[in-house]
């Protein structure tokens, strides 16, 4: 089933880095849609909950050196 979740990253340090994270989450299997906003730090992911979940998105964010928070 399609789910939407929201995460916060308060420590993005450059706009390009936010788009890189967006691309990383977007290429995760099961993710239908993702928006990462540098200005507000808001991460919104629409995904198939049978395939993936928030833990995978958090991992992707951490890999790029940022701290995800559940919103």
């Amino acid at each position, binding site marked *: 089933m399609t789910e939407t979740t929201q995460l916060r990253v*308060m420590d993005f340090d*450059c706009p390009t880095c936010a788009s890189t994270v967006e691309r*990383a989450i977007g290429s995760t299997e099961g993710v239908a849609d993702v928006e990462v*906003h540098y200005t507000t*730090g808001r991460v919104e992911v629409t995904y198939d909950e049978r395939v993936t979940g928030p833990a995978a998105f958090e991992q992707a964010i951490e890999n790029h050196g*940022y701290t995800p928070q559940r919103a």
Partner: protein
Amino acid sequence: MYTLTDEMPVDWLPNEWLRAGRRHRKAAVTATSGLLYAAGWSVGHVSGLETVSAAVLVLAAVVGGYDIAKQGYYELRNRTLGIKMLVTLAAVGAVAIGEYWEAAAVVFLFSLGSYLEGRTMRKTRSALQELLELTPDTALVRRDGEVVEVPAREVEEGEVVVVKPGGEIPVDGVVVDGESAVNQAPITGESAPVHKTDGDEVYAATVNQEGALDVRTTGAGSDTTLQRIVRRVEEAQEAKSPTESLVDRFATYYTPAVVVLAVGAFAVTRDAILGLTLLVIGCPGALVIGPPVSVVSAVGNAARNGVLVKGGEHLETAGAIDLVAFDKTGTLTKGETTVTGVEGFGAGVDADEVLRLAAVAEKKSEHHLGGAIVAAARERREHPGKSGTSDVATDGGTVAVASEADGSRSIPDPDEFDVLAGKGVVARLDGREIVVGNRALLDDRGIAVPGPVAAHVRERETRGETAVHVALDGEVVGVVALRDEIREAAPGVVAALHEMGVRTVMLTGDNERTARAVAEEVGIDDYHAGLLPEDKQAAVEAFREEYTVAMVGDGINDAPSLATADVGIAMGAAGTDTAIETADVALMADDLERIPYAIGLSRATRWNVAENVAVAVLTVVLLLAGVLGSVVHLAGGMLVHEGSVLLVILNGMRLLRY
């Protein structure tokens, strides 16, 4: 103290540590790398132990660079050649040619820069979240005759919440019992408390200052006015302003150009470090960060002052406003029309009878003048001794109509009734025709206006009042004068706008004389009277040929004019989603003084964005020239680059305190 042998879940401890470690990792890594760098540098300079110095400097680069390299690797996996990979390559390259000092310095400076950038941006981002934290987590709810404490977001619509004096209101709702003063600053930005009693709306996160209140819930959790506002503000912050889009488009050409330049420089000079230096310092950091930081800070500042700006685009336009058009009723005036005088002119028809006739005719009308006339007639019936002014409104700006049931008996329904838009009403009662309206209506119906009546009407109108004729069977029998008080703040606000070089215009459906009187009292530059709603829209359209126009209104009746203006400003929007929907800028409170503030903030934002773009462009130009002219090297270039990024962020953040 817990130890691992305690009955705690074993994985609890390391996890907690891990998370704490992750939180402070950037700071720790940066600090360690910096200390090693300083140590390596001093060892080299003071003791001359070259090998030791080199080893410590390489260690500094490795400690600081490990995370950067790892993140660069993930960037590459996403098919992005990002700044982190470039910094890694630059550091590795520097070590390879024996420039240990440069390697350690570039890593440390980049690490420090991005740590500080993340930290300052966190401050900007959390400015809004602080607003949300004002909503209490729990609510006291009346359930089955008991008061129970439940999580605020679990309160159901229709449930009654008890709010103690001094407590924050946990939900949106309507007061059903009690009376108090409520500080609505989190929503409206107004620190003066608002009086609340039965039937008044209250908002989550506002503070109940005096008495206990019982509030019937209309929205809780994420369905509150504050939550909706914050969501709107975030959307506004995320939307790109024209400058941002321009800069982004520029960056898509600029970045490849820098890569070509770097490769070209390497091809010519065979100097790998020069190529890498160009790549690192050529990153358009300050340029792409500057505009969004300015906009986010300004939109956040506005939100905390009760002004919802719906995007950077509107902020940039609002900064160019040089004409503000005000709707009169409910904007420059309070929108609380009251009857100020009734005069009888016919034989045997006294003032009370004139008012009664007018009230009969207007009873079914939904016009605000009609409402005021009916209210005054009821008042007079109940308190015959009093002068005939009605009650003023409490909160919403509408005329309070008391005791509907009693009033219906004293003022009969008209047998027939017809509204003529912009003119008045024609009604029939017991075979007699009552006409209530302006001069145009009387002329239409061929009713003569005697000299004394015309003189009286003129006199009332030059005082800024609206005079309504009352005619019975084709003969004018009296005049009802009404007045809508001007807001105390209006003259000051108009003066403040003039001070800023902004022209002011009033648009109104009222007649020429009334309009002139109000315009003079407020001190407004110009006025257009006798306008129908579509005329107002046309007037705004005409102003736009010469000016950047803001239109101020309630956002409901004047939605078309608001939409036509360059910037539509709606007042008193807290409770009405339609107003927030149609406006570009919504003032949560009925507070005119926010208009000069909003325009001032927008102007400051335009300046701020321009400053940031200038700093960024200047930095890049100087650095490129410096690098190509061999004046600037890797570490120095990085220092200036990171410095310029921090400078534009800090400059943008000044708008948080405008």
